[in-house]
């Protein structure tokens, strides 16, 4: 027999006294206020916390709704078992209801998935939480973790735990097959347990600062060990545009191996130096050599291997970011923009990743489908009948191609609003104006797009009295050198060819076909940062460069072997620019557009600045366009 102290006191008739005594010793006002505030915040965010379930309600993990139309963040490792159910699942909210849910996008390496809850009635809005700024977190701040540990709440009312942020910018290496790598993550002592995966970490304002997904366990059993990790919301923001577009996103490498120098020679503060660079990396093309010292990447200083993995790990592949370095570790720092290379690409896979032992990423690989309990995941039959099942389309490179098509259609609608519909003008085009080269030379400019007898368009650029450059990008007799004409532009004529093709077709159908039949020719490419060059033709540095950054929506078109990315302003879908590339060994030709003016009911750019690698080629000022109809 045992009883606690209160029972003992009761036995002596002291219970009322004891309880009253406790009540009188009220906490001080600050503590009481903090508690009241906390309770308020929890009540505010609770309706948006989801239990991610197999179809039918068997709880798999947690999630959090981030928009009124039902977009919800969770862990990739939570939704991965639903793959064999066509990625159809259900999410339980605190209202006690289960909502049919479909996978939208995923980030396998970062262990994040975006799913969409379907409303019970069309047009119904979901409760959602605000995204915070995880870079403002500091060790010692309070945090709230919410979710459904152990599948405790059958009515999906989330469990809340309260604790400290123990560390920020933590690096936790991949768990198995190169996925689930937690870079730049948040460490906390707030209790998380199995079932909390995918659930939100909130700051005390109730803003979402991370997605809880991992802990350090090591001989402690897979329950709360006092050391939990959340993927920072700032990292997730970088991938959100891609995930909304249904992309199976990839992280990136710099294509360069970096290691700590001076460790053995006794220098107590370490330096990070390049040890090896892939020829096809931007870093190598910008002239960075082994022994050059890496100072900053993506605006953050790099002084350790963990720093490097942290700053690199938060970005999707192909993003352009500023890199600051010192040649040979000496002299003045230089800054350049580099595009990140794919992590999981086939080529990289074959070559075994980046060179050198100090390479930034683990061996790539796709996680095989894990058999659910009993081999077949629960609810498979019912899931197939869900309306969510109609919102799924499998395609290589995509988590759910259905959403890519939706996003492409939406962006094209906005684009038509911003620029008009150019599909009427499928005939020959002409443009007249001036050209100013970066070296100061100027001249009259004539551009012509002429459809040849064989159906392939020829593009011609005439500059003053100099003999014109002509290129037929899809012609059979094009030489490799032609593709980069005019000289120094990196392929402006091919880029201009793409421009006309894009604006006169503007759809996902014919005309955009790659040589690789599995690669769709017209897709939404998520969101990428773009740093437009002004017509002063000066390359910006430091803060100016950072300020010029626009996170644009991207349409990616593939024609033959040419890949073009079209960058649209996130506000109004104005064309900010585009870049066309022919192969990985060369920089793309970048064109930045401005001065959009009306021509025959469509809005076309009248100022084009052309950049190739780290050089500006020219500014093209168009005075008039002539658009022919077919």
């Amino acid at each position, binding site marked *: 027999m045992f009883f606690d102290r209160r029972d003992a006191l009761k036995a002596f008739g002291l219970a009322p006294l004891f309880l009253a005594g406790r009540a009188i010793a009220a906490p001080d006002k600050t503590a009481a206020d903090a508690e009241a505030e906390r309770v308020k915040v929890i009540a505010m965010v609770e309706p948006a916390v989801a239990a991610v379930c197999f179809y039918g309600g068997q709880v798999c993990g947690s999630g959090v709704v981030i928009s009124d139309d039902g977009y919800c963040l969770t862990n990739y490792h939570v939704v991965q078992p639903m793959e064999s159910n066509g990625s159809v699942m259900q999410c339980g909210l605190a209202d006690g209801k289960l909502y049919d849910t479909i996978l939208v996008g995923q980030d396998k390496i970062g262990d994040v998935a975006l799913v969409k809850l379907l409303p019970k009635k069309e047009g119904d809005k979901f409760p959602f939480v605000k995204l915070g700024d995880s870079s403002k977190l500091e060790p010692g701040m309070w945090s709230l973790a919410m979710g459904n540990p152990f599948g405790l709440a059958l009515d999906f009312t989330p469990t809340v735990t309260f604790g400290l942020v123990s560390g920020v910018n933590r690096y936790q290496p991949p768990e198995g097959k190169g996925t689930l790598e937690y870079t730049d993550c948040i460490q906390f002592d707030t209790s998380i347990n199995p079932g909390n995966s995918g659930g939100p970490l909130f700051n005390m304002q109730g803003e979402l600062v991370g997605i809880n997904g991992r802990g*350090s366990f090591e001989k402690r059993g897979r329950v709360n060990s*006092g050391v939990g990790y959340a993927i920072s919301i700032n990292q997730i923001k970088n991938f959100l545009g891609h995930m909304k577009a249904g992309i199976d996103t990839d992280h990136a490498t710099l294509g360069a191996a970096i290691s700590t120098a001076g460790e053995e020679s006794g220098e107590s503060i370490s330096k990070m130096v390049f040890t090896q660079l892939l020829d096809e990396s931007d870093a190598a093309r910008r002239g960075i050599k082994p022994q050059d010292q890496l100072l900053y990447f993506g605006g953050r200083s790099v002084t350790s291997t963990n720093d490097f993995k942290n700053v690199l790990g938060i970005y999707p592949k192909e993003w352009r970011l500023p890199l600051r370095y010192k040649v040979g570790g000496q002299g003045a720092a230089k800054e350049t923009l580099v595009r990140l290379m794919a992590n999981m690409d086939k080529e990289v896979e074959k070559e075994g990743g980046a060179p050198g032992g100090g390479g930034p990423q683990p061996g790539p690989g796709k996680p095989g489908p894990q058999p659910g309990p009993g081999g077949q995941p629960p609810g498979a039959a019912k899931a197939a009948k869900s309306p969510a099942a109609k919102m799924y389309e499998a395609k290589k490179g995509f988590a759910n191609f259905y959403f890519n098509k939706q996003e492409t259609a939406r962006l094209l609608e906005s684009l038509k609003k911003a620029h008009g519909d150019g599909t009427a003008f499928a005939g020959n085009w002409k443009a007249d104006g001036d050209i100013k080269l970066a070296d100061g030379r100027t001249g009259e400019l004539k551009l012509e797009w002429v459809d040849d007898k064989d159906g392939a368009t020829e593009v011609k650029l005439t500059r003053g009295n100099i003999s014109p450059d002509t290129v037929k990008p899809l012609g059979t007799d094009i030489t490799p050198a032609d593709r980069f004409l005019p000289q120094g532009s990196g392929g402006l004529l091919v880029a201009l060819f793409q421009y006309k093709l894009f604006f006169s077709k503007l759809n996902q159908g014919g005309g955009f076909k790659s040589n690789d039949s599995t690669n769709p020719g017209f897709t939404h490419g998520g969101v990428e940062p773009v740093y437009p060059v002004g017509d002063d033709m000066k390359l910006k540095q430091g803060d100016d460069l950072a300020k010029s950054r626009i996170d644009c929506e991207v349409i990616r078109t593939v024609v033959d072997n040419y890949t073009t990315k079209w960058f649209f302003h996130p506000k109004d879908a104005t064309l900010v620019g585009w870049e066309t590339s022919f192969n990985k060994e060369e920089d793309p030709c970048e064109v930045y557009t401005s001065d959009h003016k009306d021509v025959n009911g469509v809005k076309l750019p009248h100022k084009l600045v052309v950049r190739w690698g780290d050089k500006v080629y020219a500014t093209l000022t168009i005075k008039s366009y002539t658009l022919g109809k077919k």
Partner: protein
Amino acid sequence: MRTIRYLLPLLLLASPAVAADPFVKVSQQVNEKVVKIFGAGGFRGATNYSTGVLVSADGHFVTIASQTLDTSELIVHLFDGRRMKAVVLATEPELDIALCYIRTEGKKKDEPNGLDLAFFDINESAKRKPAEPGDWVLAHSNLFEVAMRNEPVSVMQGSIISFSKLHGKRGIFDFPYRGDVYVVDAISNGPGAGGGPLTTRKGELLGLIGREIKNSQTETWINYAIPTFAEVEIKDDKDVVTKVSIPKFVELAKEGKYKPPTKVINKGGLGGYTGLKFVPNVLDRTPPYVDEIIPDSPAAKAGIQVNDLVSFIDGEPIYSIKSYQDAMSRTRSGDTVRMEVRRGDNLQSVDLKLGDWPKGLLKPTVTVPPEKK
């Protein structure tokens, strides 16, 4: 000046910002007084990293007397990312404490190293009123080796739930420290946390986070810290009792004057029979190199070879023939012990089923090297 100092804390208390995130600043201040230690280990659950607390501006730090320190290549990372070498000046197993010193490159062991670091005043800490159950505490440590270089150590928050003695066991060994400890409700004692500071919520040092120990009845790990005012009584073989406190240990060890009291030799016996014979025990710390193996003995059956160096017994580091004998004295015939022996450059794990001492075999006497004069 006095008035200002008096007023300032009041103003701070009234500020709502402080109430919201009271630990950010404290955590930054404590972090500057903590070192991340990297040393020996890395197998069989023995971490090769731990945490230390700076107790002088020029780089003396205390930590637990763990196997991590058992290396000539002890490295510490300071809060600002500096990576430096360190040496162990003294250890006291009864307090489970070690005092180490950071060396700067090119300077001799006892030369000033030019460091000027923030540190905890261990004397002041020991004199402070002990914390009580219910008090909020913060634990700072590099548990799970999460932090490297200039990355701050982890901070955890909890309460003291009890102040009491532990009767834990570690492997086959008794937990070395027998005094009172602070037991906390934060999961503070993860791998590598040992030696980190347990502080008040204002960042005042209360104790050192202890080594990992597990309650063998409940299979739970214990979260506790050894208070800075800890004092133990050590009885030597002449029944003379010496009192050693942490501040006293630190004070003497800093001067190179700390001599661990000669402990009572376990006269209880030799423990189980292995069949190992070692090189002559002539030094204070003669390494237990195997000199001879009795044929057909447990050691012979387990495949131990001449010239192997016994390094661990059941996960406990063995430094010397004496510590080997200590370890073995707690075993019995019929027990199975796991020994890690160093053979060439590798560690080999062998399980020995201990036997009875054969009749007629001359048992070695427990040897104690002569006191150094």
